């Protein structure tokens, strides 16, 4: 396709693909077939392709970086051992993210940490100097704090929507829940996030 045709296609409504979509080529399916036939090279390739995205996704669920690596590796081992069961009913990425989500939830329950969803931000903002607190509050840390106050499932929906660029149907598949649950979780998460984002919508109007 030459450049002009490319521009026309774009104007007619074809979207430039996100990183997520670009990586979802027939390649993923082929890799999975090779993995089912026990090809470690294909497995390594798939691992390298998915590690960054899965790591980011999982940290929303299990929070502890040390645990993320363990859960990520459990996820990839599950991919390794069940690749032959993949029937193509969903995209490969959806299938892998769904495994990661289940493993993440399992790990969270197993560790049963006292405050998995509430970092010690409350204490921090009262301990640091007022001007520092003001700076922090008015910048990035407002979002950090707000994300910390959400449940793991709400964080997962926010991250899959904004960062991974997924639609609500795919998110529902990954989290194995009704579509309406995804919409409702996103709705409540947005409510919470917007109240602490600097330059809140209410200030703009």
């Amino acid at each position: 396709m030459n450049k002009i045709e490319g521009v026309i296609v774009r104007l007619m409504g074809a979207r430039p693909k996100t990183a997520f979509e670009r990586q979802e080529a027939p390649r993923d399916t082929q890799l999975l077939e090779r993995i089912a036939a026990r090809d470690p090279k294909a497995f390594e390739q798939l691992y390298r392709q998915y590690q960054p995205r899965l790591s980011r996704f999982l940290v929303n669920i299990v929070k502890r970086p040390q645990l993320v690596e363990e859960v990520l590796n459990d996820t990839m081992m599950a991919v390794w051992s069940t690749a032959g069961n993949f029937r193509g009913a969903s995209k490969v990425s959806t299938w892998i993210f769904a495994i990661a989500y289940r493993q993440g939830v399992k790990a969270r329950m197993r560790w049963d940490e006292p405050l998995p969803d509430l970092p010690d931000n409350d204490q921090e903002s009262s301990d640091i100097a007022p001007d520092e607190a003001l700076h922090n509050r008015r910048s990035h840390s407002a979002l950090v704090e707000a994300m910390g106050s959400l449940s793991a499932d709400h964080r997962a929906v926010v991250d899959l929507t904004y960062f991974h660029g997924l639609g609500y149907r795919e998110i529902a598949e990954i989290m194995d829940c009704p579509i309406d649950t995804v919409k409702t979780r996103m709705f409540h998460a947005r409510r919470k996030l917007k109240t602490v984002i600097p330059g809140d919508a209410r200030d703009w109007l």
Partner: protein
Amino acid sequence: MNDPSANPHDEAEELLPWYVTGKLDAADRERVEKHLTECADCQAELRAERALAAEYRDYSPEVEASWSSLRERLGPAAASPVAANSNWWHPISRPGMAGLMAAQLAVVAVTAVTVSYLNQPTAAYRALGSAPVVASANAIVIFQPQTREDQLRRLLNDTGAELVGGPTDADAYVLHIPDQSRTAAIATLRKRPEVVMAEPIDGQAS
């Protein structure tokens, strides 16, 4: 899949995040756009939604989680202002600050446009291709998908362009550029690596 009895306002409001990320199917998108043309609350919500999505791009849950566990090891020292200043503020908050300023500036620009929209309620929101674009729109630009919001904003500022609408289905933004500087502005935009295309949209040669 969609409850036909659902209130169109609630339905549109719930779908806005995926409207912003371009992940709605045609039917959903049409419903949202139709509702946006008639609901000032949802127009405001859309602006807030864009600001939130932009701010979120600077957010790294991995950095936050790693920092959180490292800070535990620092013990009480982490709570002192000096430690907080050198360890916390610099690596993490600067991009956040940029995001904050970006969001605020974007809001100023968008609000200015919106105020003029609100005076003509039926023309408040139109998607390119579904209806004629508003009268003041005179250029269209498509940015590389990986272009960051702050780059986009700087380009618009540098060329004196105002955002009138978009992103459209094609990820194009509709701009208003003062007539006297439009030719030069489009030429400048075309030279930028972040710009896929920039075209006048009223048929005039640039």
